[in-house]
C-alpha cells in the first residue's frame, strides 16, 4: 500500500474517535482532502529535494488516543531538569500528561487549554500545505496559550514521543496568541529515547499582537531513528518582536517548514537555527519570511554541522512585498562539513517587490575559518584541538544568545555528547 493510500485508510479507521472540540469532523475531512489532492511531496519538488521522504512508507498515521503506564514511565525518564520560573506542560505522543506537568492552569493573564481548537485551515496558506493539513486531519489534542494584553509568563512545553512510528503517530500541536504588549517566553522541546524510531508531525501556530514580545526556543532531540515533520505559522503585529531560536540534534529525518509574516509596521523577527548531525541523519528546513508592512526587520542566522554521512539543508527565503518600504533583512547562513561523506546545502533567497529596502545575505558551506585556525595555532594550540575548538565555537555561537542559562547549559551538554573522539574531550572542557 502506498503512503497516501495508508493515510486515507488510517484516517477512516480513526476519524470517528478524534475529538471534534479540537477540529470538527468536516474540518478534518477537508484537511485530509488537501493532503490527498496534493499528494505527499516527492524528492523532485524543489523545496523537498533534501528531505528524506522514504520513511513515510514505513509509518502509520493513526494517533495514539490514550497514554499507558509504560509510556508515562519512559517519558518520565526523559524529562530534563525543569527551568526555574517556567510552568511545565508535558505531552506524551501528542496527549497531555497531567501527572508529569506542573500546571497552574490559567494564571497571570495567560489562559491555557490543553484541548483547544486547532485552526482547520492551519498551514494551508503557508509555505507548504501538506504537513500542516496532516496535523489538522489527525491531531487528537492541541495546547493553546493565550496571553491577555500586557500579560507576562514563561512556559515550557515538552513533547515526548514514545511509540514506534510503525505503530502510531504523534501530532504535537500548539497555538499561541500574545495580546498587545504581552511578554511570553516559550520553550518547546521534542524528545525521544536515544534510538527510538518514532513518527511525529507538529503544528505550531503563533499570533503575536502589536508591541508584544515573544521569545520562542525550540529544541528537537528525538531518537536517532525518528521521523519528524513540523510546520510553523507565525503572524507578527505592529512593533512586535519575535525571537525564534531553534536547535536540532535528533531524528533520522527531520523537516521544518516555517512561514513567518511580518504583518504590522515595525514588526521584527530574529531567527537563529543551529543543527548538529551525525551518521546518516538528514535535517532540512524551508523558512519563508514575508515582509508585508513598512519598517519590518529580519535577522536570520543558520549554523549547520554535518558529520559522518549526514546531510544539512537550509533554504532561507525572504520576501519583501510592495508595502514593505524601509524594511531590512539580514541573513547569515553557514554550514560546516565534518565528515567525509557529509553534505550541506544552504541557500539564501531574496524576492523583492519594492525599492527602499535593505537586504543582505551571506552563505558559506565548507571548512573551518582559516583566520581563526591560524590564530589558535599561533598560540601553540595543537591543530586537532584547535579544529575541535572551532567546531564547538561554530555550533555554540548562536546558542550563546539564548537568555535562559539553565537551558543553554542543557543544550551545550547535548552538543558536547554529539562530539566524538578528540572533539568530545575539548567540548567537555568547554561546557
Amino acid at each position, binding site marked *: 500500500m502506498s503512503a497516501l493510500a495508508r493515510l486515507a485508510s488510517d484516517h477512516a479507521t480513526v476519524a470517528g474517535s478524534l475529538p471534534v472540540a479540537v477540529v470538527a469532523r468536516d474540518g478534518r475531512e477537508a484537511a485530509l482532502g488537501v493532503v490527498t489532492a496534493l499528494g505527499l511531496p516527492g524528492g523532485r519538488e524543489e523545496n523537498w529535494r533534501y528531505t528524506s521522504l522514504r520513511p513515510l512508507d514505513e509509518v502509520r498515521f493513526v494517533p495514539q488516543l490514550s497514554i499507558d503506564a509504560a509510556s508515562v514511565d519512559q517519558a518520565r525518564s526523559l524529562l530534563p531538569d525543569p527551568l526555574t520560573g517556567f510552568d511545565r506542560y508535558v505531552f506524551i505522543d501528542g496527549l497531555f500528561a497531567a501527572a508529569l506537568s506542573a500546571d497552574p492552569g490559567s494564571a497571570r493573564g495567560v489562559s491555557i487549554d490543553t484541548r483547544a481548537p486547532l485552526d482547520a485551515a492551519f498551514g494551508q496558506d503557508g509555505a507548504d500545505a501538506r504537513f500542516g493539513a496532516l496535523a489538522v486531519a489527525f491531531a487528537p489534542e492541541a495546547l493553546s496559550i493565550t496571553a491577555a494584553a500586557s500579560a507576562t509568563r514563561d512556559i515550557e512545553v515538552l513533547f515526548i514521543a514514545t511509540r514506534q512510528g510503525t505503530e502510531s503517530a504523534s501530532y504535537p500541536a500548539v497555538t499561541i496568541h500574545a495580546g498587545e504588549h504581552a511578554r511570553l517566553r516559550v520553550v518547546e522541546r521534542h524528545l525521544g529515547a536515544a534510538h527510538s524510531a518514532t513518527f511525529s508531525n507538529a503544528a505550531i501556530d503563533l499570533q503575536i499582537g502589536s508591541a508584544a514580545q515573544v521569545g520562542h526556543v525550540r529544541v528537537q532531540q528525538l531518537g536517532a531513528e525518528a521521523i519528524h515533520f513540523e510546520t510553523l505559522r507565525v503572524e507578527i503585529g505592529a512593533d512586535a518582536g519575535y525571537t525564534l531560536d531553534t536547535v536540532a540534534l535528533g531524528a533520522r529525518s527531520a523537516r521544518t517548514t516555517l512561514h513567518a509574516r511580518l504583518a504590522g509596521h515595525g514588526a521584527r523577527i530574529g531567527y537563529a537555527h543551529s543543527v548538529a548531525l551525525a551518521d546518516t541523519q538528514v535535517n532540512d528546513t524551508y523558512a519563508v519570511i514575508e515582509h508585508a508592512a513598512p519598517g519590518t526587520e529580519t535577522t536570520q542566522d543558520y549554523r549547520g554541522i554535518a558529520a559522518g554521512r549526514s546531510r544539512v539543508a537550509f533554504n532561507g527565503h525572504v520576501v519583501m512585498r510592495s508595502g514593505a518600504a524601509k524594511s531590512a533583512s539580514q541573513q547569515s547562513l553557514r554550514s560546516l562539513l565534518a565528515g567525509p561523506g557529509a553534505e550541506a546545502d544552504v541557500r539564501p533567497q531574496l524576492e523583492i517587490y519594492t525599492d527602499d529596502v535593505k537586504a543582505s545575505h551571506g552563505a558559506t558551506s565548507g571548512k573551518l*575559518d582559516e583566520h581563526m585556525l591560524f*590564530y589558535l595555532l*599561533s*598560540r*601553540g*594550540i595543537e591543530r586537532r584541538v584547535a579544529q575541535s575548538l*572551532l567546531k564547538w*565555537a561554530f555550533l555554540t555561537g548562536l546558542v*550563546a544568545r539564548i537568555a535562559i542559562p539553565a537551558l543553554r547549559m542543557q543544550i551545550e551538554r547535548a552538543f558536547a555528547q554529539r562530539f566524538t573522539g578528540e572533539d568530545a574531550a575539548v567540548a567537555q*572542557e568547554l561546557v
Partner: protein
Amino acid sequence: MLKIENLHVTVGERKVLNGLTLEVPTGEVHAIMGPNGSGKSTLAYALAGRPGYEATQGRVLYDGQDLLALPAEERARAGVFLGFQYPVEIPGVNNVYLLKAALNARRKAAGLTEIDAFEFLEFVRGRMKFMQMDESFLSRGVNESFSGGEKKRNEILQMLVLEPRLALLDETDSGLDIDAMKVVAQGINSLRGPDRSIVLVTHYQRLLDHVRPDRVHVLSRGRIVHSGGPDLALELERRGYDWVLEASAA
C-alpha cells in the same frame, strides 16, 4: 636569537619579501618601520608560520634552529609569539580557555607539568590587573565584541601570560588612544629582559616614544634598506621615508 638571511616570501602570486636579511640579538628590541605595502606584516606572518606565506629562498634561524621548518603551533610552543594587527574574534571559545590551553601547550613543550586551575587564575588575574583589564573579560569569547583597543590589550595580555622568547608585535599601536598606548607600552616594557627579543612592526614612531628600541630598520620593497639607532625613528617621523628610499636606490 633571530637570524634572517636573504629571505624571499611569496603570498599567492605576489613576491613580497625579496632578500630580507636581519639579525636580532638576544635581549634587544628592534623596530621595523616602512611605508605601506613594504612587507612589514608579511615578515611578521612569515615568521609566525601563517599558511599561504611561502618562503621561496633564504633561511631563518631561531636560537640556531630552522624556524621555517616548523609548523605554526610548534613555533609558538618554542617561544615565538605574534601579536596580531587585526586579532580575530572567536565567539564560543572563551578567553580563559584559550589562555590556559596556550600556556599549558607552552609548558608541555618546555617539559613542565600543566598548571593547576587555581594557580592559573591567580597568575592571569595579576597580569590582567597590570593591563588594566576587567575580570569579566575572562568568560567572554576570544576578542568577541572587543573594541580595537581591547583587542590589542588582549594580545599583550596573552604575551605576558605566555612569556615568549621572541615577540613579534605587528602594529600593536594602531587604533590605540594615548592612555591605551601607555598601558600597552608598559606591558611590552615589562617583558624586556636579557633572555628575550622583541620585534616591533610599526608604521609610526609614537609607540617608540614609550618603548625605546635598540635598533630601527627601514623596510622597503621587501628588503631592509637602512638601519640605525633609536634616533632613526625620530628622523623618519620628521623627514618621512623618501630620503631613505632615495639613498638606498642610489
